[in-house]
């Protein structure tokens, strides 16, 4: 293209390049779509031919059958609704104070100096390891399960929120100061929106941890819930319902992350 104009053979080679790129893209998409189907097909085949023990690895089609049976009997609804309720309550109970404490720590150095060592010391302890204490404090009922989830959601959110405030570019703080922002205006116009992107990452992490925790929390002293479904089925050697429980966890994990991504796009439209 010495003279700056595309000549016919250039156009041809550009078209060829474009076609080969498109082909590569189609291949990749097909592979992405095919991988779960492939896995399920192999599983089905191995299970039906008893090459793997069908008691532990029941065929996907029979798991799907159990899935619909459980919907029809209403059993599914009761497990799912109680688990979702616990997750929602625990998630809120953990996130709200975490956001407040994180903002305070990000804004006021003495707060950070005081709370940082406590958080650092408590964070590595898995909340599940504290379940016996939590049960003693909050009883065997709903309280202890909600508190367990809240406790495990709290840490990633508080740490990300504090980091979010601390990472706000100095220049915006100068701008607010120069234009005479009151502490309240600074909080609502600079600290909170400025920390929001990193805070949302913490909340996404918290959501993933909440799902991990609910399953374990419901293995102890629960009569219903997805975690109970998995654990009790396993103990009774009923593997179909156990796999149904695992599918439910996977499904809700995906739904929650979609929901939070949507929320992030609404709350942080400027990124």
């Amino acid at each position: 293209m010495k003279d700056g104009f595309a000549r016919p053979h250039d156009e041809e080679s550009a078209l060829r390049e474009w076609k080969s790129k498109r082909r590569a893209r189609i291949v990749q998409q097909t592979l992405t779509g095919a991988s779960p189907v492939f896995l399920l097909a192999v599983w089905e085949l191995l299970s039906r031919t008893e090459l793997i023990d069908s008691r532990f690895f029941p065929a996907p089609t029979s798991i799907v059958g159990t899935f619909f049976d459980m919907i029809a009997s209403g059993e599914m609804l009761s497990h799912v609704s109680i688990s979702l309720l616990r997750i929602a309550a625990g998630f809120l109970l953990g996130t709200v104070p975490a956001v407040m404490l994180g903002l305070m720590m990000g804004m006021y150095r003495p707060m950070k100096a005081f709370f940082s060592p406590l958080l650092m010391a408590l964070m590595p302890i898995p909340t599940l390891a504290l379940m016996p204490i939590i049960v003693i404090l909050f009883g065997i009922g709903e309280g202890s399960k909600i508190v367990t989830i809240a406790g495990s959601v709290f840490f990633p959110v508080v740490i990300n929120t504090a980091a979010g405030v601390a990472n706000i570019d100095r220049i915006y703080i100068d701008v607010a100061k120069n234009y005479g922002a009151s502490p309240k205006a600074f909080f609502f116009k600079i600290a909170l929106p400025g920390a929001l992107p990193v805070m949302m990452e913490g909340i996404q992490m918290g959501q993933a941890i909440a799902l991990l925790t609910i399953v374990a929390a419901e293995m102890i002293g629960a009569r219903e819930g997805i975690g109970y479904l998995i654990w009790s089925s396993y103990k009774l050697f009923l593997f179909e319902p156990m796999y149904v429980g695992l599918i439910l966890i996977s499904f809700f994990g995906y739904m929650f992350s979609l929901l939070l991504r949507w929320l992030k796009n609404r709350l942080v439209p400027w990124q």
Partner: protein
Amino acid sequence: MHAPEAKIAIEGIAKVFYKKKQSILALQDITLRIRDGEFVTLLGPSGCGKTTLLRILAGLEKPSAGHFDVRRTDEQKPLQSMIFQENGVIPWMTVEQNVAFGLNLRKLPAKLVKERTHYYLEKTGLTPFAKLYPKELSGGMKQRVSIARAFANDPELLLMDEPFAALDEQNKFILQEELLRIWEEHRKTVVFITHSIDEAILVSDRIVLMSAHPGRIVAEKRIDLPRPRSVEQIRSDPGMAQLFVEIWNHLQREVQGARSEFKPCKG
């Protein structure tokens, strides 16, 4: 210069920074008077403390010694507003919200806020972009937001911290002329910082030359060219070429001198 009508009176300001166990004298004995409506530029090599001086005037730093006074004409007006270097535009506010920032913080009536915001959006050609977030704007457009925000706030004096340093040359010329055009309307007192001699000559009534390590005022130059000025006019004026060389020689001596002394300093 000790006229009673001084808008800003800076009296013996010094600033010391402490780094670990070292203390660094960033500003030494700065005394300066600026008339009402005067456009004054602080010009000097980086590390001469010009930004520190501006930040003191902006209330973002406290002087280690000395003081300054700004004579107020209207108690309702804010004392000063700053046009920051690049990135001073707040990314989570739309263009309109950024321009209205100072006005809203002062809780002015919504009608007045809207009126004044729209006036300066129009002046800076930002009206079509009012609802956009800064990430969608070019560097030049962002700096227009910063300019509109400061002018809309209607302060007693305007502070400008190398507002065009990050722009490409064509955009810089365009924005320099736009800034002068908007400034001509009210001729507020301005303290402007730059390291560009051309820019200083174009915009200033008076250039205050500073040296580094420590930051001191070493000379002053009046620019008596008639206003309104344009880039073209300044460039074609032979007297200005002479002035450029003079200032350049002066700064060169200062930079060389500073280099041979080799002391660290914070800009």
